[in-house]
């Protein structure tokens, strides 16, 4: 059924807004559309491993793409690093807190006895990046015991916007969309591994339109829609 009509894209859940918009625009232009399945990158990768009918995989981090690459389940020459993102420190919008993020900054003091909301530091990409940044900046040891690890970035965002946690670390893309929070500061790009969203065709992809959609995602027409959601578009524009 699924492989009959449209190319199938397996995409990390955090891409939903941008991809839905791009997909709609592609349809308007070409009368073709992609079917997008949003879930956790981990689940998507394992599904592809067990023969899911996906043509394109967009992971929220490099690990799960590497996982598939190692198992020879993607077409290596189609792999492109499509997007970049930033992580930011946020607080509820009425919070008076002011911090300059930099080496040795005292996050623990700013937290007080509150907790720092972030994605699961071993499972959720944003959590992993946040942990790396804090370590790099020497703030990890002070807050390690005060982390609230959320199941997703969105859950971490909610914890801050509901005032459960005084501070949180989320993607810039998420922070921008929630009026209940304000961005206290952005982590320096060099404080953590680059936040990258790789994209590739799967090994079994045979849908004639898959390559076209892959190209469209990298095209100038898609770029503003990604940027509108706060992503940085890293791949060079492909002309169709």
């Amino acid at each position, binding site marked *: *059924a*699924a492989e009959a009509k449209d190319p*199938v894209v*397996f995409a990390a*859940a*955090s891409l*939903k*807004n941008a991809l839905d918009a791009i997909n709609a625009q592609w349809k308007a232009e070409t009368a073709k559309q992609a*079917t*997008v*399945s*949003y*879930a956790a990158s981990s*689940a*998507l990768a*394992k*599904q592809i491993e*067990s*023969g*899911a*009918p*996906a043509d394109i995989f967009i992971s929220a981090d490099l690990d799960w793409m590497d996982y598939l690459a190692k198992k020879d389940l993607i077409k290596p020459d189609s792999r492109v690093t499509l997007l970049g993102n930033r992580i930011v420190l946020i607080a509820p919008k009425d919070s008076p807190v002011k911090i300059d993020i930099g080496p040795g900054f005292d996050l623990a003091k700013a937290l007080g006895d509150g907790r720092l909301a972030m994605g699961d530091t071993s499972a959720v990409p944003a959590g992993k990046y946040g942990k790396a940044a804090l370590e790099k900046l020497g703030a990890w040891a002070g807050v390690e015991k005060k982390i609230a690890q959320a199941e*997703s970035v*969105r859950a971490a*965002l909610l914890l801050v916007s509901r005032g459960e946690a005084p501070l949180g670390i989320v993607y810039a*893309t*998420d922070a*921008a*969309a*929630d009026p209940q929070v304000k961005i206290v500061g952005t982590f320096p790009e060099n404080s953590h591994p680059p936040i990258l969203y790789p994209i590739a065709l799967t090994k079994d992809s045979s849908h004639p339109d898959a390559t076209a959609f892959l190209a469209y995602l990298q095209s100038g027409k898609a770029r503003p829609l990604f940027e509108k*959601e706060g992503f940085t578009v890293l791949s060079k524009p492909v002309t169709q």
Partner: protein
Amino acid sequence: MSWLELSPAEWTAVHLSLKVSFWAMLASLPFGIIVALLLARGRFWGHSLLNGIVHLPLVLPPVVTGFLLLILFGRRGPIGAFLDQYFGIVFSFRWTGAALACAVMAFPLMVRSIRLSIEAVDTRLEVAAGTLGANPVWVFVTVTLPLILPGIIAGMVIAFAKAMGEFGATITFVSNIPGETQTLSAAIYTFTQVPGGDAGAMRLTIVAVVIAMAALLLSEVLARGVARRIAAA
């Protein structure tokens, strides 16, 4: 209230959820009855083991159940490959797979309901049917089954309700493919994962609640009707 209006894609998810839940409920029913019968009446060695296995989906995180399903029933999994080759039944990334996941997750609840009603049946009526010439299968069909109908209805409704809410195992097993495996719950989940998705999540949640409430109400009405029909003689 225009934010309450569903997009076509959301209508698809609603429709799919109903289909998936309905078939999950219906297809697991015979197995539910058989297992409930075994647990209620059977005296065999692996009784406790069977009881344990039936309850597993309740105990395990849904994601784990989903992964186990993927490993077993996926296209490359031992059972999945077998069913595909010999019967042409494919679960992976089909709505049928979503139904399987929901059925598995709802199974312990269905079995519990039916088992309790079987344990309440007056076995003397079954004996009486036997003396009238009915063989055990016919006794079951004409006496036991009608008498446990309230329990079966309750089991079906709770399974249906659970299936409407299930997404952890489903999304892990068959992904979240709109029109194929994206149920209402998965759609709600997707909304919760992106900025600004709250309104959408809320809208779909209301739809889910309305459907489930309707099912519960219906089951109460049905159960009351059946109970009246079979009031103790």
